[in-house]
């Protein structure tokens, strides 16, 4: 059990590459903390610094209030699950599980009990005498987990532990992992590039990009109050829609039409200059099919280009009237997160609405979409920052 604190941590590699920049985080005892971000953003580097496998260039790492920057990995009493699992190929499952205990010089009978317990928890009891080469991917993953839990360390570190599993097993293992962590109550730092994993697993999520911490908060908080365009676009699937707009006389003007600024936003926009250009962010579920239900809120006519029916949801794609939102932050987002590839277009060039599956919208036809103005976000196109003071706990803007 441990509280992990990162204070102004930097990592500069020998080749001069600045992989982690001024990372500040306080992970309380027992928390399940997720590091999420696009590939190469420094997640693994941060995790390896906590493990002691990578030196800390600047800043302080504290375990339970004690600075451990110079402590060897073996003296930190933290266990780690590697993306490759890193099982010892020449040892049986039993020997793999026993390894941390044997190194620690624990008595034989204690090793035996602990290994058997861990094996029972992870359903490995029948495979204890097999070598890793003869195990399935899921079993190997569980052995790696078992080796981490067997010695009851102060914290678990996991570097993309599910990324080598197939999609179905990944979802299943994800649930088991969350349950196991809750039961053991051990502080856990979990690295992933998959925002779905981040949103479903963690107590809190830290979003990293290009070595910098973008935002840290509960999954709900990140979804509802992204601090900047990067977080807004990275969290949520399909991604948030971005539309170029202008603030004018209490209205948000877009090429499609005007939206009123609701009270919540009005309070926060007092400092905004008149005619300020902004980037309007609307989650896909911020749209609804006006033909289906009565309601209030601004409505727009759009021409539907693609319809994807997922059974429980229906995604309708359409283009913004204008050339779409333009901003340096959006370009960065598209480039760094690979979102551009995922949606076959850059963010801002195609919009998507998540509609009720009963909706009758069809490709090539016009549809009338209503916007729920409580679901909007506004960003400064220059800085990419949200125009809302995101620290305040807002009553609206929650996901449905």
């Amino acid at each position, binding site marked *: 059990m441990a509280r992990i604190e990162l204070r102004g941590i930097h990592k500069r590699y020998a080749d001069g590459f600045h992989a982690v920049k001024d990372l500040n985080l306080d992970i309380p005892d027992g928390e399940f903390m997720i590091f999420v971000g696009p590939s190469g953003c420094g997640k693994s580097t941060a995790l390896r610094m906590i493990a*002691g*496998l990578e030196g800390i260039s600047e800043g302080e790492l504290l375990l339970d209030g004690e600075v451990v920057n110079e402590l060897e990995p*073996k003296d930190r009493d933290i266990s*780690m699950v*590697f993306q490759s699992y890193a099982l010892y190929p020449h040892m049986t499952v039993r020997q793999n599980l026993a390894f*941390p205990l044997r190194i620690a010089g624990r008595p034989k009978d204690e090793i035996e009990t602990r290994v058997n317990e861990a094996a029972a928890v992870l359903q490995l009891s029948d495979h204890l005498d097999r070598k890793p080469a003869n195990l399935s991917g899921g079993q190997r993953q569980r052995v790696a987990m078992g080796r981490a839990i067997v*010695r009851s360390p102060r914290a678990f570190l996991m570097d993309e532990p599910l990324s080598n599993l197939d999609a179905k097993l990944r979802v299943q293992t994800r649930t088991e992992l969350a349950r196991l962590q809750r039961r053991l109550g051990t502080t856990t730092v979990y690295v992933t590039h998959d925002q779905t994993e981040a949103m479903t697993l963690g107590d809190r999520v830290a979003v990293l990009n290009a070595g910098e911490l973008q935002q840290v908060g509960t999954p709900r908080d990140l979804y509802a109050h992204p601090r900047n365009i990067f977080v807004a676009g990275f969290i949520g699937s399909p991604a948030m829609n971005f539309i170029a707009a202008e603030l004018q006389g209490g209205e948000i003007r877009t090429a499609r039409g005007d939206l009123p600024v609701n009270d919540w936003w009005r309070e926060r926009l007092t400092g905004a200059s008149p005619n300020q250009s902004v980037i309007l962010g609307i989650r896909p579920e911020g749209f609804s099919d006006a033909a289906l239900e009565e309601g209030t809120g601004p409505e727009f006519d759009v021409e539907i280009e693609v319809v994807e029916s997922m059974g429980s949801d229906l995604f309708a794609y359409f283009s913004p009237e204008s050339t779409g939102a333009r901003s340096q932050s959006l370009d960065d987002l598209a480039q760094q997160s690979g979102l551009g590839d995922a949606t076959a277009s850059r963010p801002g060039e195609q919009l998507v609405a998540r509609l009720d599956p009963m909706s009758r919208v069809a490709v090539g036809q016009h549809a009338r979409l209503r916007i729920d103005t409580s679901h909007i976000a506004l960003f400064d196109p220059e800085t990419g920052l949200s125009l809302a003071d995101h620290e305040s706990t807002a009553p609206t803007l929650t996901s449905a």
Partner: protein
Amino acid sequence: MSTVAPARPASPEVAERSPKKRKGQGTSPVLWIGVVFVVLFCLFPFYWLVQISLRTSQDIGVAALYPPNPTLSNYSDVFQNDDFVAGLRNSAIVATVTTLLSVLVGSFAAYALARLRFRGKFTILALILSVTTFPPIAIALPIFQLWTDLGLNNTLIGLIIPYLTFALPLTTYILTSFFREIPRDLEEAALVDGATRFQAFRKVVVPLAAPGMATAGILTFIFAWNEYLLAITLTTSKAARTVPAAIGNFNDTAGGGYAQPVGLIAAASVLISIPLIILVLAFQKRIVAGLTAGAVKG
């Protein structure tokens, strides 16, 4: 249509593969003749040695493909020969110690070359390997001079040291490629599991590199066991003379200085080949795997 299409590209592939397979099975008589020829060519000298070792000294000159009066007397005689027995003992010590030291020191060097990041790593590896290109004859005399000054002539340690200089580059080279293929993750996992660097090396890296160590060890053993030039240069008596050098000296001792004890030499040669043949046959697969490791994956 669409269900038929994928099947099409597969069939020429099958057709292409089958003749190759037939060739690979080696049913062609030409190939067999070739194999038999090569095997005979390689084994004939050894057969000649064996059949000479089974002749009496009177029969040595008889022109025949087999011994006229086969006898094992050469074998019992050779064990009566003090020089040979002392040589066996010296060879066993020199080859074993050289092998152990070379694998031990070589694995430390190879680990550093494979794992640590430092400037001029490639240059160092190239330098180490270049040592093996010196012909032993070029260094035999300087070493003899040096050993005379240091009092290491005619000692076992005086043989082990130069043998190590020849064995270490090869050992280091083989082991470097083995260590390189062991994922770094495994060592790091050991470190977070509570191991020291040395424990991680001993409990994770060494067991995984064992085939490489076996290969390097066997090759070193064979080299040290067979080495002749330095052995005759640096030894003068049975105190340090290894078996090849002792056999080379049978001329002077056993026959009283004039008769050539050909049968005795042959028997001794057969005897000292046996441990190597057993070793190589037992570890054949490992040696091949060890020599190609790294080369395949590049």
